[in-house]
Every structure is written in structure tokens, then in C-alpha cells.
């Protein structure tokens, strides 16, 4: 498995380093010569100088044999183009884009990017754990298979309280791998009864998300 990371900022650097530590074949592409020189000190041959949204750079990087491309530059438009070109020209099976403006998530999905990660959204989700404004938060969306990882905080007025999970009419394409209850992880099963304040991690198809919201949040 060959991974190409585009954008040698902090995210790209630590990602590349972590992948290398796991023995992964990885190449980081950085556009800025001065930043490249710094990265080169530490990452040696695992970093390449070039504009990762240029087809010529992609060819030199061996994009045609990459199994995953991760675009983590600070510009959403660059991340979009990198992933689209990787898919259209080089048939890379999996493209992951960092989104800086969370509102771009929708358009990235529509334009064929497999996975989007928004640090703004993740941080927002953390804040919302403390100040609950939205009880259902998207953690990760795998657009190509139509599946989302969501976190749901069970409100005091939830219609799902007091009954075991198996009796709630949860759709088949929706599972709960984890419940966080009073800061402890609980693996739920059919007999588990939800309590107000539980944080539920759910894996759900996009189609069933509205049903899930209805069952748990009313």
C-alpha cells in the first residue's frame, strides 16, 4: 500500500511521520521550497518538492500506483482538485481531503471525494459536548459507501429512555458500537437501556440518519 500525502504543514508532517513509523510506504509532497528544506532534514527521501495539484508532479510521485491520496493543504480548493485529479486521471481508489471550511463538506461529497475530515467540525463537536447545542454531531462521513459515524447525546426528554435498545425499532443499517456513560466506555447490546446524558457513537447509513434522530431525540 502506497500513500501520498499532499501538503507539508503540521497535519501533513505528523501524518507522514506516523505512517513511516508504522512501516508504511509514504511520500509527502510540499510546494514551498523553504518548508521542503525543513521537512527534508527529518523525512529525507520521503518528501518531494512540487505542486501536488500539478499532473506532472503527480506523475513523478508515482500517483498511478498509489492506493490512497490524502490532501491536507490549508486551501480547500487545492485539496478538492488534488483528490479529483487523483481519481479521474490516476484512478486512485481512495481519496481523503481535509476541509477547512466545514460548509464545503457537502460539495466535496457531491464531487466524488471519498472521505472528508474537518478539524473545525471535530473541534466544534468537542465544544458541543460541553455546550450542547446540537445533539447529533457528525464525526466522519464515508461518502462513497453512504455511511456516517455520528455522536448523539441522549437528552433528558429522549423518547428512547427506559426501554432496551432492541425494542426501539433501530433500522438494520445502523449500529451502536459504543456508549460513553459517566465518562466510562460501555459496549452496548440489545438489553442495554439508555440513560439521559449517555453519549452514543453510532454507525449509520445516510438514509437511516433521520429515523435514528427521530428515535433518540424525538
Amino acid at each position, binding site marked *: 500500500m502506497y500513500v501520498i500525502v499532499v501538503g507539508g504543514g503540521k497535519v501533513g508532517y505528523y501524518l507522514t511521520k506516523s505512517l513511516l513509523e508504522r512501516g508504511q510506504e509514504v511520500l509527502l509532497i510540499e510546494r514551498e521550497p523553504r518548508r521542503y528544506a525543513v521537512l527534508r532534514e527529518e523525512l529525507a527521501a520521503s518528501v518531494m518538492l512540487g505542486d501536488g495539484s500539478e499532473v506532472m508532479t503527480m506523475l513523478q510521485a508515482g500517483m498511478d500506483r498509489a492506493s490512497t491520496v490524502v490532501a491536507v493543504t490549508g486551501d480547500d480548493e487545492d485539496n478538492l482538485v488534488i483528490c479529483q485529479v487523483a481519481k479521474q*486521471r490516476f484512478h486512485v481508489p481512495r481519496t481523503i481531503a481535509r476541509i477547512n471550511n466545514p460548509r464545503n463538506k457537502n460539495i466535496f461529497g457531491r464531487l466524488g471525494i471519498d472521505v472528508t475530515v474537518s478539524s473545525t467540525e471535530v473541534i466544534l463537536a468537542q465544544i458541543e459536548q460541553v455546550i450542547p447545542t446540537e445533539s447529533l454531531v457528525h464525526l466522519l462521513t464515508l461518502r462513497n459507501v453512504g455511511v456516517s459515524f455520528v455522536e448523539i447525546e441522549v437528552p433528558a426528554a429522549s423518547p428512547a429512555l427506559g426501554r432496551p435498545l432492541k425494542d426501539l425499532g433501530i433500522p438494520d443499517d445502523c449500529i451502536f458500537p459504543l456508549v460513553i456513560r459517566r465518562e466510562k466506555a460501555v459496549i452496548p447490546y440489545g438489553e442495554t437501556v439508555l440513560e439521559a446524558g449517555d453519549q452514543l457513537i453510532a454507525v449509520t447509513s445516510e438514509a437511516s440518519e433521520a429515523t435514528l434522530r427521530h428515535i433518540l431525540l424525538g
Partner: protein
Amino acid sequence: MKVVILGCGRVGAYLARRLQEEGHGVTIVEEDSAALDRLGPGFAGEIVVGTGIDEDVLRRAGIEQADAFIAVTNWDNTNVMAAQVAREIFHVRRVICRIYDPLREEIYRELGLEAVCPTLLVADHIHEILAGERGGGAS
């Protein structure tokens, strides 16, 4: 026709003035307010300051009522993304974008964008001029 133009560089400003003189409704979107000087004092179209890949900015520019959207900033990737937002989210009937990189232009043509590549246009034109001279000399 109502036209939204993204990017007030030389091409954007010229096109905005020309379309407006022809009687079209023109809105120009530009991030750098200093660049708007290129429009000259006579420009009577609308001006929106902001980044063109932001849906709110495009909405303010009236993209929902636009017949055409033209992306001519100096950045290929910005033009590509803005054009796709115009097409996929706002369903603008006519979307044209400038892409300097010929290889990227080819890819986005394959993906159905109407793209113009100035690099190829100029190179082809110069080549034609040269070929014409050679042809003239031989006859």
C-alpha cells in the same frame, strides 16, 4: 442575460465592462478590493467583495438568478472549485472557467466543465503566426 464574474483581473474586468456595455446585467466578485480599480470609473454593474468559493458570497452576488457564471481568478484550483459549486449547487446554465494548466484543463473537460486554457490558446496562436510566415515564404 445576468452574468456573475469571479475575479477582477485583466480578463475579468475587461469582460465585465464589455458585457455591461452590451446591456447585460453583470456582477463581479473579487477578494481584493484594490483590484476593483481595473473596472474604471464608468462601470455600472454590481460589485461584491469576497471569496468566490463561499456559497454565501455567491448567493450575495445573485448566482441563483444568474444565466452564466465565469471563473477567471488567477488560481486554477479556485476557478475549478467555484465553477463546480456554480454547476452542482446553484445549477447555473452556463459555467465557464479559466484553467492555465493544459493537463488539468483536459481532465476537467472530461469531467464536463467548460474550460478555457489561455496557455494553449496563446501558444497555438503564436504557432499559427509562425506557420503562416513560413507558408508565405514558400509560395
